[in-house]
């Protein structure tokens, strides 16, 4: 008998091996670039999913934490010459502290008010990126951010970046899958289903939400730092309200609470614009439609939606066989 835990480990191992082997088949540099971005987006979607899927709290400002990571990495390495690896940790800690501090007042709010407050926070940070021109370079961006380096290996090619990004992303995914099966994960689900009931059971719902918000911000900032070093150029446009919405779309398309779903959502939303480039500007309309349609017909996301569809088909076939026999 295979236990649930073993099954989970098995699935994860297959997933991880497939990804680590992928560059053997995708030698073409363009595809690898896309895969690097899918990795970064997966990390972000998983981070947001911790908050949205596990704890049931929305954030419309998560691009801000992504941006904090990217800009801190960019500024501290180009202007102060600090060690990039050290800066990644520093930047992530900074974003976590910011999240922790604003988390207390912000996560007291619920539903629509929480959405608006996180949105407001995201826009304030976005305006700061744009206006502190001396530090961030303003709207024209910050360039010549150094590539990461371990010993003599410089992460300036797509292949190196692919492995760097994906190894960290896989760690984040493993951590999140683990988390959902821990005491904290169960407590989060309880808060998700009914905050009042969870509080009655002795869960400090408020503090728990702040904690998960902080963890989520930490991961998002790491993704931001990796993004900055991989691209060597950043500008505020990548960290605005639209990107926050795009992240929410990834999580919703993949399915709230589903870690592999977040990967799927991130992959779809990263690849989609590449295809839609032919019909320039169409992507925004499609995102909007996707959000509406997914919400109305597949509220559990693609993975659970497809599972349900498959079950229905299997059931029909069985019925038919039954009728034939």
């Amino acid at each position, binding site marked *: 008998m295979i236990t649930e835990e073993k099954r989970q480990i098995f699935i994860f191992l297959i997933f991880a091996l497939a990804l680590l082997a992928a560059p053997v088949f995708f030698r073409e540099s363009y595809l690898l670039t896309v895969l690097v971005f899918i990795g970064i987006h997966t990390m972000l979607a998983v981070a947001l999913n911790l908050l949205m899927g596990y704890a049931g709290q*929305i954030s419309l400002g998560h691009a801000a934490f992504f941006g904090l990571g990217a800009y801190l990495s960019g500024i501290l390495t180009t202007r102060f010459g600090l060690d990039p690896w050290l800066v990644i940790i520093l930047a992530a800690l900074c974003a976590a502290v910011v999240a922790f501090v604003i988390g207390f007042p912000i996560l007291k709010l619920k539903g629509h*008010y929480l959405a*608006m*407050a996180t949105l*407001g926070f995201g826009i304030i940070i976005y305006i700061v990126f744009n206006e502190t021109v001396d530090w961030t370079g303003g709207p024209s961006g910050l360039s010549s951010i150094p590539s990461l380096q371990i010993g003599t290996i410089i992460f300036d090619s797509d292949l190196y970046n692919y492995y760097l990004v994906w190894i960290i992303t896989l760690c984040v995914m493993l951590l999140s899958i683990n988390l959902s099966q821990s005491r904290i994960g169960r407590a989060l689900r309880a808060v998700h289903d009914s905050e009042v009931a969870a509080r009655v059971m002795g869960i400090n719902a408020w503090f728990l939400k702040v904690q998960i918000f902080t963890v989520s911000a930490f991961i998002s900032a790491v993704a931001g730092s990796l993004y900055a070093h991989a691209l060597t150029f950043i500008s505020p446009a990548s960290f605005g309200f639209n990107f926050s919405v795009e992240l929410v779309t990834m999580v919703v398309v993949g399915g709230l609470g589903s870690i592999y779903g977040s990967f799927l959502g991130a992959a779809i939303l990263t690849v989609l614009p590449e295809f839609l480039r032919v019909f320039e500007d169409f992507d925004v309309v499609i995102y909007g439609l996707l959000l*509406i349609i997914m*919400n*109305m017909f597949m509220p559990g996301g693609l993975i659970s939606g497809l599972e349900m569809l498959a079950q229905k088909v299997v059931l029909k076939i069985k019925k038919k066989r039954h009728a034939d026999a």
Partner: protein
Amino acid sequence: MDDNYRQLFQYILSGLANGSIYALIGFGFAIIHNATGIINFAQGEFVMLGGMLTLFFLVFCGFPLAPSIILSVLIATLIGISFERLAIRPLKNAKPIRLIIITIGASIFIRGAAMLVWGKDTHALPAFSGTDPLYLAGATIMPQHLWIFGITLLVIFFSRIFFNHSIIGKAMRACAYNAQAASLVGIDVKIMVMISFAISAAIGSLAGIIIAPLTMTSYDVGIMLGLKGFCAVIIGGMSSGLGTVMGGLLLGLLEALGAGFISASYKDAIAFIILLLILFLRPQGLFGAKETERV
């Protein structure tokens, strides 16, 4: 008159004009929120639609001003009604997170469609009655400012009459207090929700039309205007109509004075800092009564 004073007066005037717009947009938020408990993230897009549709009829189709405005408000209202019918009603008992996402989806969809239809350019709508400034006590007033103040006052006046004295308005308020009880006394709650979307789309688009000559219009003006309207209604408190007006005017003034005397580049940040402060310190708004939390 001293130059500084003249400047101050100018800031106050434009602050009040923008504030009136925020108040109108905030009204739209409050009407839908009171009827359904939803914050409609697509509210700003109706403001954008108002401006862009009027521009389209006026400049591209060559219609006169009044019919253009009426047509635009009608079309925006129809879009509001179909939005409710197609996306909101099927989900009526969903969790807030789904409703938030669906209104955001609608908002990007409308914005994207507007961009495809009208392009990305920024346009100026001609002022309703010329741009010759009027002089009042040494300061200049644009005729468009007077239009904004006048129309805002009219909208506030009529909505007060509507909600306090007409049977539909009273029925809508009954739904806001308790939808189940309202349906027990024979009020069709679904229709009331639909009317709330219609009114809020109409007021939003009207706001977009009267501000367009002052601030220019393009497919993406809806985000900021919508958010600031929300900010107005949060300052004033969802439950208080007059509070929303005060909230809008206060926001407009603070923004104009902040942009004038502190920093113009942080003008937009001012609104959001106020929004966060109010949400943190007094979520029921400055003028609203405290809502009890229902489990």
